[in-house]
């Protein structure tokens, strides 16, 4: 489904962010990418839909290599939800914004309207279609941001820090939405309990390399690994006794 092979990247200023990342994700999986600040998580994400071009190595989405000639198709397949919904939502109303992606894919008329309605219904924001984004709460804006990429009918949903700045109720609502979607999910996060709740599998990205890959609970219980890569569980949280959700 998603295959990242030996991906290395240095920014134009010479700062090397990724040193040969290998990652394969199967259809329907939900995978968390964990790692400290500056580990290269966002850089990795920006490679998945061809915003950044691989310095070395390759990225493939359902067999299609991420490269110039088919960027449009890649960007349909990979739905990227950015951390700040104000960056993602730039059109005058929620409905216009959700329509932006599918319209770029050439949809119009009834089909486009239906796509927008479906995407908004998936995140429970249908009744807010006509509102301008700045009148919504932060949690609502985050949900609309998810809808904007769902409207493009992606094969994989990539979420950058989906739980950041959300109050506990919005955080839980978003988790419910993510669980309700029948879609492959890659979630970049610092929120380790959230990763455990939503993703059966986790990889740890540290200093531009994947240093661990396994069941989320095992990764979080590996104290030595966690310490070595500046990952810390919140006070009082024990992954051994947290239980699992269906």
């Amino acid at each position, binding site marked *: 489904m998603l295959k990242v092979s030996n991906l290395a990247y240095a920014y134009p200023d010479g700062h090397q962010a990724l040193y040969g990342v290998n990652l394969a994700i199967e259809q329907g999986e939900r995978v968390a990418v964990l790692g400290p600040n500056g580990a290269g998580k966002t850089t990795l994400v920006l490679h998945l839909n061809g915003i950044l071009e691989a310095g070395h190595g390759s990225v493939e989405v359902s067999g299609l290599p991420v490269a110039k000639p088919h960027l449009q198709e890649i960007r349909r397949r990979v739905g990227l939800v950015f951390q700040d919904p104000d960056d993602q939502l*730039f059109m005058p109303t929620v409905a216009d914004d959700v329509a932006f992606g599918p319209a770029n894919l050439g949809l119009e008329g009834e089909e486009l309207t239906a796509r927008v309605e479906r995407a908004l219904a998936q995140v429970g924001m249908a009744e807010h279609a006509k509102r301008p984004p700045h009148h919504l709460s932060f949690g609502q804006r985050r949900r609309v941001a998810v809808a904007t990429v769902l409207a493009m009918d992606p094969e994989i949903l990539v979420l950058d820090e989906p739980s950041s700045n959300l109050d506990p109720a919005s955080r839980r609502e978003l988790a419910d939405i993510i669980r309700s979607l029948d879609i492959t999910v890659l979630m970049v996060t610092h929120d380790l309990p959230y990763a455990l709740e939503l993703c059966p599998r986790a990889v740890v990205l540290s200093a531009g390399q994947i240093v661990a890959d396994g069941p989320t609970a095992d990764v979080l219980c590996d104290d030595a690994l966690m310490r070595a890569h500046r990952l810390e569980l919140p006070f009082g949280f024990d992954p051994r006794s947290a239980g699992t959700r269906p």
Partner: protein
Amino acid sequence: MGAGHGHRLHYHGHSALHRMPAECKLIALLIFVLAVVATPRTQYWAYGLDALALSVAVACSRVPVSYLAKRMVVETPFVVFAVLLPFIAVGERTQFLGVTVSADGLEAGLSLLAKATLGVAAGLLLAATTEPRALLAGLEGKLPQQLVQIMAMMIRYLDVTGDQLRRMRIARESRGFVATQPRHWPVLGHAAGALFVRSYERGERVHLAMLSRGYSGTLPGLAPPPASAGDWSRALLLPAAAALVALAAWLLR
């Protein structure tokens, strides 16, 4: 500001004026303002007729007069200038309310006041009856795409940037800084610079987000179906009246 509707200038309603396509209202406003400006300046009765025509339009829109009146404060700089004119202009002197002022300046001041008031009121009426999104849709196809896109972004991010500015001010004041003297200005300059850099960076992130959803240079159409001949004829009633008044004022001069 009603939840779910436009911005501070918009007055939610369903009048004929609210329903009229935005492009009709825009063109009507433009012609109305041009006609008012073209009216010879000493024909004060003409401004009265223009004001009457405009108030009929306001009545049709069912926007309360008090709502518009409060927002007329944006006209203040013009009013100040208009009031100063009779005193600073040179030439023949005349008596007005017991004060000796310049006759030319008095005429210019009065007509400036009348024209500015009519223009601002008409502009406010447009803003009160048209949501920003509808305005953009109305401009689409009439202005270059890039300009419409820039305006769309401006409307969207004005509040975001305004909020940021407010948070920065609160953060400054929380640390005991209140700008009162010119020697405080450099701090405000730094704040403006920081805001610029942040906005620029946000611009880059927005662009990335747009690219991620397949942006290729054009925004998908916002435009509703084009305005009908009936819409145009109704919209042009007001500017037609103002144009007739201006013409009559020239002929009777």
